């Protein structure tokens, strides 16, 4: 299956199909449904320096072709991850990439430092785009300056592959991608969720305890695809495309727009085996189009 191999900086993935942070737990949640070892990579749950309870219930609202969430990075902290979870998942025969979140620059740095030594975690994804925490989170991802600062600080302490996950809630995502590239990010992943809101007209109350939350799912795909295309035209580092992918065709569209790999998020909830179908669908596409390698479609949109 060499024809599916792609590289994210120094990091080789056996195929471009990965699963998005916060939608795939630590992988084990899907072990009954799919062969985890076939995935290009698993982006595990957002991990913070200290444990976080997350936000109050309700944390979810269905929307047209999508959903809002305000989970708020519920997790047991990086130490718990290293001591209790990592030993169980390090045996997977796929790449494990930790999504690092935080409220302060120091949080990001400390959390990243601790992950550097994990031999089976070859990369981290810096989440500077979570709309669901009060401090930090998305704020880091909405100006070039703050995005550059956090990237620089983490780059100083983390030598393995550094992926920075961008927020779509900005006027010019390409400029932010450029800023983090300039500070040494090996890759950018995009997009995180769009800040959205849902209201129950009958009760006149917000549907989320936090009023606003992050929108994901097929509804956002057209915007995410446009952003990948804009970033592809602005940076040289590889892009990991995210946003509403629900089929092999979607994944291929993201690759044509310039993604080297893709993440599947929300659609895993609808079809827990979707990632396998996307891998098979890409293989089939390559055969039908007589292409030797998946790299032949990256950025090959004919405009």
């Amino acid at each position, binding site marked *: 299956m060499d024809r599916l191999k792609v590289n994210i900086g120094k990091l080789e993935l056996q195929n471009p199909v990965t699963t998005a942070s916060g939608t795939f737990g630590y992988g084990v*949640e899907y072990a009954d449904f799919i062969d985890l070892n076939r995935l290009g990579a698993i982006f595990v749950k957002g991990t913070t320096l200290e444990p976080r309870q997350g936000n109050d*219930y309700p*944390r979810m609202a*269905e*929307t047209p072709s999508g959903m809002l*969430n305000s989970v708020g990075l519920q997790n047991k902290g990086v130490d718990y991850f290293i001591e209790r979870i990592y030993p169980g998942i390090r045996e997977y025969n796929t790449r494990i990439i930790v999504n690092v979140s935080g409220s302060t620059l120091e949080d990001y740095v400390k959390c990243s430092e601790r992950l550097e030594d994990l031999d089976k975690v070859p990369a981290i994804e810096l989440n500077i785009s979570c709309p669901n925490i009060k401090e930090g989170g998305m704020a880091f991802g909405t100006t070039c300056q703050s995005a550059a600062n956090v990237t620089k600080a983490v780059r100083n302490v983390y030598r393995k592959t550094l992926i920075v996950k961008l927020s779509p809630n900005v006027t010019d995502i390409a400029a932010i991608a450029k800023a983090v590239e300039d500070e040494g990010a090996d890759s950018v992943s995009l997009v995180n969720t769009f800040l959205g809101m849902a209201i129950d007209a009958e009760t006149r109350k917000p549907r989320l305890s936090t009023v606003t939350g992050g929108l994901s799912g097929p509804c956002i795909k057209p915007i995410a695809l446009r952003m990948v295309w804009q970033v592809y035209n602005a940076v040289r580092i590889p892009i990991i495309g995210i946003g509403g992918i629900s089929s092999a065709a979607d994944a291929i569209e993201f690759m044509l727009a310039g993604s080297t790999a893709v993440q599947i998020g929300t659609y895993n*909830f*609808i079809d827990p085996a979707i990632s396998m179908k996307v891998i098979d669908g890409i293989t089939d596409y390559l055969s039908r189009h007589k292409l030797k390698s998946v790299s032949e479609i990256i950025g090959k949109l004919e405009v």
Partner: protein
Amino acid sequence: MKVLDFTVRSNEPLNYQNNLIKVAPADNEPLPDMHPGQFVQVLVSNSGSVFLRRPISINFVDRGKNEMWLLVQRVGEGTRKICEITAGQTLNLIFPLGNSFSIPHKKGRYLLIGGGVGTAPMLFLGKKLNEKGFSAEFLLGGRSQRDILQISEFERLGSVYCTTEDGSLGEKGFVTDHSVLRNNSYDFIYTCGPKPMMMAVARYANTNKTGCEASLENLMACGFGACLCCIEKTTRGNLCSCTDGPVFNINELTWTD
């Protein structure tokens, strides 16, 4: 857990808003082990506005016919569309999901309290208790006579008491007003239904120092522990009601309402 296509064997309206849907694996493979309190996630593929799956309890398992029953109440677009599916059509389910009611180890008086469509898992639970050789008593509540479902099925498994808000069947009032609660004491209570009802049941159980489990109906996105959307605040912190639940011992719950 698996994702599987089921063939709808029958879909029968029980009243103005509830359907009983009987399904069997499309590939005819025998159904795996399933436990009372567990649920399935139904894919609603025939609607323009439903995106997420819908959680529905396992109402009954008929091993002889390799059939699973779902009792569905039409409250919105998703449940309405599920009820439109006709015999012969396919329903894609993720199942079995969640923990289950704890099955006692010895004989005793067990009361199963269901309100509205919350009676659904009680049928399966009653059957399991019967199979273990334990008797079950059922206390079913609804707004009116027509809202009390599957009475004859329940009667096959044990004594049935009813309350209706309008008094059209059984005693008038809420389940917790029923005289059976005043006149008897139980070894364990199981409950499923609207939250205010379950909270009243929990108060009764606490007052009477009776063990009690409740099945929650939190909003769910995935149903199998991946999204952390369905959390319930408990004495053990935020737990997933889809994997740590939907059944919780009332002692763990921190319900404020």
